[in-house]
């Protein structure tokens, strides 16, 4: 009897995990050249910071180019984030998991997301990712992915109260 119960629980948890990941399947993986606009609300700042730029997404590599109001380039890979400084990309220490997170979210890397997050549906168009492991759970409270058939908005809610909203469509701007 106990064995049957254990087996049933195991099958149930596997089914739940499978159901979690299936929430992401509504979004097609992002690829190629994408315009973005970003709105960043930081604790201690009375106004949100707005910026614009584009993302170039190749296999396992993401170029984050902010064009306005500052010009800055970030190269994001699974090894971490590198910033363009003094004519070369210089690694930003401690950013490995953030780099992996960005790639995983944009490319819908289900294995990474399943390992580090628990998923739930917050609305018809949005999926919430709750970090379950260090170091992400020491940086982020939650991450929300929203869109209909394609990923259109990523919202990063940091534990310190900072919030970053990234819209992924050309010509779309935040208020």
């Amino acid at each position, binding site marked *: 009897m106990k064995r049957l119960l254990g087996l049933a629980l195991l099958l149930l948890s596997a089914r739940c995990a499978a159901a979690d990941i299936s929430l992401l399947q509504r979004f097609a993986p992002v690829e190629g050249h994408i315009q973005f606009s*970003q709105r*960043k609300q*930081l*604790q*201690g*700042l*009375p*106004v949100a*910071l707005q*910026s614009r730029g584009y993302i170039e997404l190749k296999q396992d590599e993401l170029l*984050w180019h*902010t064009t306005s*109001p*500052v010009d*800055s380039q*970030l190269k994001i890979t*699974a*090894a*971490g*984030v590198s*910033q363009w400084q003094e004519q070369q990309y*210089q*690694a*930003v*220490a*401690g*950013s*490995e998991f*953030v780099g992996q997170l*960005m790639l995983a979210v944009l490319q819908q890397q289900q294995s990474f997301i399943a390992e580090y997050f628990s998923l739930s549906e917050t609305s018809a168009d949005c999926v919430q990712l709750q970090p379950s492991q*260090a*170091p992400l759970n*020491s*940086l*982020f409270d939650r991450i929300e992915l929203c869109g209909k058939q394609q990923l259109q908005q990523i919202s*990063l809610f*940091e534990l*310190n109260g*900072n919030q*970053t909203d*990234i819209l992924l469509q050309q010509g779309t701007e935040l208020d």
Partner: protein
Amino acid sequence: MIKLRALLPGAWLATVLAMLLLLLWQLPQQQWRSSIAGLLPAAAEPWQQQLLEQVNSSRQISLALTGVPIAQLRQAASTLLENSAEVQWHQPGQLLSTLQQHYQQHQSLLISDKAFSLLQQADYQPLVDAALQQLYSPVPLLDGALAQDPLLLTQQYISAQGREGVIPKANWLESRDGKAVILYGEIGVDPFDRIPAMQLVQMLEQQLDALQLSQPQLQLARSGVVFHAVHAAANASFEMQFYGGMSVVAILLLLWFSFRSLRPVWLATLVLLPAVICGLALLVLSFSQVHVLSMVFATTLIGLAVDYSFHAMLAANQGRLVFQTMLPSLALSLLTTVLGYLVLLLLPFALLQQVAVFMLAGLTAAFLSVWLWLPRWLTPGRMQNNRCLLNACSSVSQRLDKLQAHRVWYAAVPVAALLLATLVVSGRFSDDVRLFNQSPASLLQQEAQVRALGAQQWDSRFLVVLAPDSQQALQAEQQLQLSLQQWQRQGWLTSWQSVSQQLPSVQHQAEGQQLLQLAYQSEPVRRYLTELGLSAPAPRSDWLLPDSFPSPVVQQLIKLDNYSAAIVLLSQVTQVAELQQAVQQLPGVYMLDPIADTNASLSALRSQLMIWLAVALALSIAVLAWRRGLKAALASGLILLIATSAALLVSLALQQQLNVFNLIAAILVLALALDYAVFFTSALHKAEVIQAVALSAATSCLAFGMLSFSQTPAVASFGITVFCGVALSALLAPLLSVIRAKELNSGGTL
């Protein structure tokens, strides 16, 4: 007087038994060491010695896992961490996180060199641009960054940290290409404490074997002093047992061949056992930590002690009178050998002192056993000499009788001069301390592999900044950064690690705060703050201090008796001489190179040994002149010179370079050759002396010859020189019998 004489054998037996009991009590508690460095002469300055004792990376170990995909590497690493509680594994991710949290609470106190320089130059726009880039990137900010450090200088400082090539994870490091996982930690035992270190390595190897079995494609690389030390200790222990055992077997066979009886075996054991017991007892009484290598060299006691028993057996077999006539020569031989080992006792080299104590006690015990016990256990005529051997010795003796003394002189003098001149001209010495322990190629390869992954990258040489207190040391080290950057640009070194790179001095932090306050008043920064709606924070005074700094780097800040020392670790120094010269120009900065310093000490020791070798030779000639007359003493000196020089030249030819252990062996050649010289210049029957010396030389050559095969270069050097020297001495010493000896009539008793 007669009564006292009669009590002596019993008293000696009681002494030996007491020594045995002492040994049985002390031996289990004895610590056996295998590190050579600790036995060498101390560093020149007291603060250097104190520093070297505290700077001890010998307990660190690293394991690199490669060969399978990263997921399997992580699994293997996790399994290893769970099953190896005997190692305190570091948690680099946790360390970094703790450090970053500490920095988070002290934002604006930590400013990069580049940002500091911009503040000093009042060039504020680049700082504002960098802060804006940081603000608009998706990477999270430190908590409270804008309130404490609106220019985000500490955030940028942290972003610039991190090792090249490795990423700190929670419990290990990973290479950036995802092909390697590196575990690093510290062991709780002294790697040179033989038994605990061997147990630890054994347990670790069991776990590594289990891992390898479960994942055959997994490749493991080990790094750490403990692996090398355990290998060296196991090697030395095996060689001590192996060569000692082989020596005993060879000697037993030789005795059986010579006498066709077990009685000589028993008699030899009667002399040898007390020698070993007394030697070992005095050694453990005199030294709290005995080096394993001293026991390897002390296997020579077997050869020397059995030599005494040969002389005594052959003499006692011919009656009490012959035995009593032989004793003064044996005593003289003991005296000259003791003088030779006393030379070692006076040198500041603990290993040699241990060998000397063991041998002095052992040889004295051997002599006393011969004198007090042997005649009681051997009835005259009881032993049957091997006829062939006896005839051969008689034949040699007869041939020697026909030789003229002046021919011996005419040959010996030029030969000795030629050999000595050749040695002086062509002699080359290597004073590399790494001769003492030879690690196997596989271990060295694994070490190199781990270093290449970037986890174990520091050279053995390092810089020391000395100052009256830790803050002044930090400040001086901070000023050294400019020189280090310049040396790096010049290609003298690749990188370095210093405390001030993570923890600036209070003075530097205070200066940074003053510069920031000026920056906040500048036009570019005021505009930046206004646009963001921020106000300039007040200057901080809650400084970052060593006592509360949560990073292992503070271990490089050391409190000495009268100073504080900040250590700068160096990586891949290519221009050692130039660096040394540049450092000498900087007050309060020193470069310490333990290996080079040890080699220099070894070189000085070698020079001392060469002088003492000459002194020992002169002393021996003086003692022989006293007992045998000047002619015999000088002739003996020539034979000793030929034997020693030839042995060293043969060693030079085989090794390409001589080392300090060849010289130690030369002292022992001297001692053994003197023994032969003493007997061949005596009035004893020549044929029996030839037989005794032949047997003695054969056993010694067997013992030392085997040492030549040792995997430890130092031991092999020793073996080659002694083998050649003893063989040559045994061949040449009979020539001394043609020189008439004048032996003082001492009545044949002591």
